[in-house]
């Protein structure tokens, strides 16, 4: 697998890795056909404290060079995925991301460009949903919360910009007002100039497309320094760890996660209990997704081993066993999973969370069946 395991993304990266480890441990305990065992090879795509596409690409090459690697779980971030997909596509190896949500990874011209080495084959899947689904859901949640006037800020990265674009489009379509938009530069420390400008527009809330590490945390924190502490702040699944940077100042933050709420799904209760028992901590925002992604990969590999007469299957044989329709869905803590022809899940769910007293609490969820 490839994830950001150090630096600003470390906490989400590590809890995601733990989801993978749990799925692998469980599969090994149940016994793998042919007497094989699964192992997790964890590579970190962080450089200088931030997830890095070049590092991700180099990690994926390392994994592909190892013949015993039959599937890759990861990456966490969309811009890293965009650098990795052409490589995994060329190698024909299954890659499943728990959380890379940018539309262009699976949809439209951008995705076609990523698959240009092997245009007829898709090797990239994701168990999360897409930016456009998440952005539209966020627009609906905002209006449900009676937040009608938005100022939109994004970090100019693949994920953040896409999310902000879709949110802006759908929020306007549903009757909200977008007062203005801004992009922030990497490594910015002072957001007060930007916030003072936004203050002049008197918005109901700020929508942020980006992650805690690309500016979300400091933006939220510095809102208090310019007298905007009471204003609502909303973002996508890039900011569930915002309380670690903004502390008590994170209260009043809303965020969406492109997955069902694990505590509420009966199938998920067992996962949550097993996770807590093994790692002694609460599940991270993408632990369940990582577990699900790993389950899908394991199920495909095990089926491929069976059809190959209990011998080591090829990467192409594993790819052929990825679930494609309701009949061979894999049951996971985030619901039954199968993929459409683009590599996206067929039954997406988006949840809304709010931060209160420094802790995340679940508010509502939307089922988006296309």
């Amino acid at each position, binding site marked *: 697998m490839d994830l950001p395991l150090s630096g600003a993304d470390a906490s989400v990266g590590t809890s995601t890795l733990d989801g993978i480890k749990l799925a692998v441990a469980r599969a090994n305990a149940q016994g793998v056909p042919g007497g094989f065992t699964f192992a997790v090879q964890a590579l970190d795509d962080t450089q*200088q404290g931030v997830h890095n596409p070049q590092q991700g690409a180099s990690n994926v090459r390392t994994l592909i060079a190892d013949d015993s690697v039959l599937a890759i779980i990861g990456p966490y971030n969309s811009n890293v995925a965009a650098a990795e997909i052409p490589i995994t596509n060329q190698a024909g190896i299954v890659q499943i991301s728990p959380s890379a949500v940018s539309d262009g990874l699976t949809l439209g011209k951008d995705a076609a460009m990523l698959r240009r080495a092997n245009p007829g084959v898709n090797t990239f899947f994701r168990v999360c949903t897409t930016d456009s689904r998440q952005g539209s859901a966020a627009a609906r949640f905002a209006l449900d919360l009676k937040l009608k006037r938005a100022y939109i800020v994004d970090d100019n990265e693949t994920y953040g910009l896409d999310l902000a674009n879709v949110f802006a489009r759908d929020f306007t379509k549903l009757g909200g007002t977008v007062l203005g938009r801004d992009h922030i530069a990497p490594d910015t*420390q*002072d957001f*007060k100039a*930007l916030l*003072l400008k936004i203050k002049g527009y008197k918005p109901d809330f700020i929508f942020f497309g980006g992650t805690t590490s690309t500016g979300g945390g*400091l933006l939220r924190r510095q809102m208090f320094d310019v007298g905007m502490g009471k204003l609502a702040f909303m973002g996508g699944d890039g900011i569930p760890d915002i309380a670690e940077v903004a502390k008590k100042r994170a209260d009043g933050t809303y965020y969406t996660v492109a997955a069902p709420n694990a505590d509420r799904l009966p199938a998920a209760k067992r996962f949550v209990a097993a996770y807590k028992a093994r790692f002694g901590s609460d599940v991270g925002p993408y632990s369940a997704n990582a577990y699900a992604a790993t389950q899908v990969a394991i199920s495909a590999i095990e089926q491929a081993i069976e059809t190959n007469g209990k011998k080591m299957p090829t990467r192409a044989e594993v790819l052929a066993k990825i679930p494609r329709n309701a009949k061979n869905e894999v049951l996971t803590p985030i619901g039954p999973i199968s993929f459409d022809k683009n590599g996206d899940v067929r039954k997406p769910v988006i949840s809304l969370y709010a931060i209160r007293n420094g802790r995340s609490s679940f508010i509502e969820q939307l089922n988006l069946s296309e």
Partner: protein
Amino acid sequence: MHEFLAQLANGVELGAIYALIALGYTLVYGILELINFAHGDVYTFGSFVALGILVGLRAAGALHGAGLVLGITAALVAAILASALLNAGIERLAYRRLRKAPRLAPLITAIGVSFILENLIELWQGSAPVPFPNVIPNPQLQFGELEVGVQQIVVVALAIVTMVALHFFVQRSKLGKAMRAVAQDRDAASLVGINVDRTIAMTFLIAGALAGVAGFVGGVSFGSAWFLNGFGAGLRAFTAAVLGGIGNIAGAMLGGFLIGLLESFSTWLIGGQWSNVAVFSVLILVLVFRPSGLLGETLPEKV
């Protein structure tokens, strides 16, 4: 008007931090003609020392009433001492033995020291940004059209007091005179009995102390400390020093405030993603059209 004044105040706050860091570049350049690229990381170090003290005191429950003022003072003093000693240590270990080497050697060494410090700080504090405690109460005050936070006033006031103190130190004290003498002509200064090594060490100590003040006010102002903070802030402060005229003390202060204002106003008027472009365009323009900087010619005496 209200917004203009708010951006002005923010620009001055940012500028005060850049000016403090820029002074460190300029002092060292003045005396050694060396761009101390590790200076930004000394600033980061100061920030983390202040943060450590404040977190420790808060955990001990000492940050209440009079303890708050004492705690803030302790954090500030610790940041100043730690940064000053670190900077002087760098000079002693890395630069002193290269004093007679070609100018490129200490310059590359400075870049190396910068990488070493960044990585050591990462090992010490991890690579994620660490939240800086909100110790200074920050109610917003209204002065007519101008709205400023108490925290902003503290940051700017601390910076200005520090700069005034530096000015008097360099102009009036015996050591300040020695610094100016060594800057003008090292050999002549040693002929009249000035201990050159000690004077240079003293300059690094003072430059480090300024970085310590900047580290404290920067942490307060931005609300976080990060092992790579010094890189970005250092580059902007370096730009400020060049803009004002590298080696010139008044120039570094002027340049710092101008760069802070430029960053604030470019974010307001053309958008946040362009503020770096605006700042570093200034660096290029100054280097091309006025390499001596704004005050470089009118005040030829350097320190």
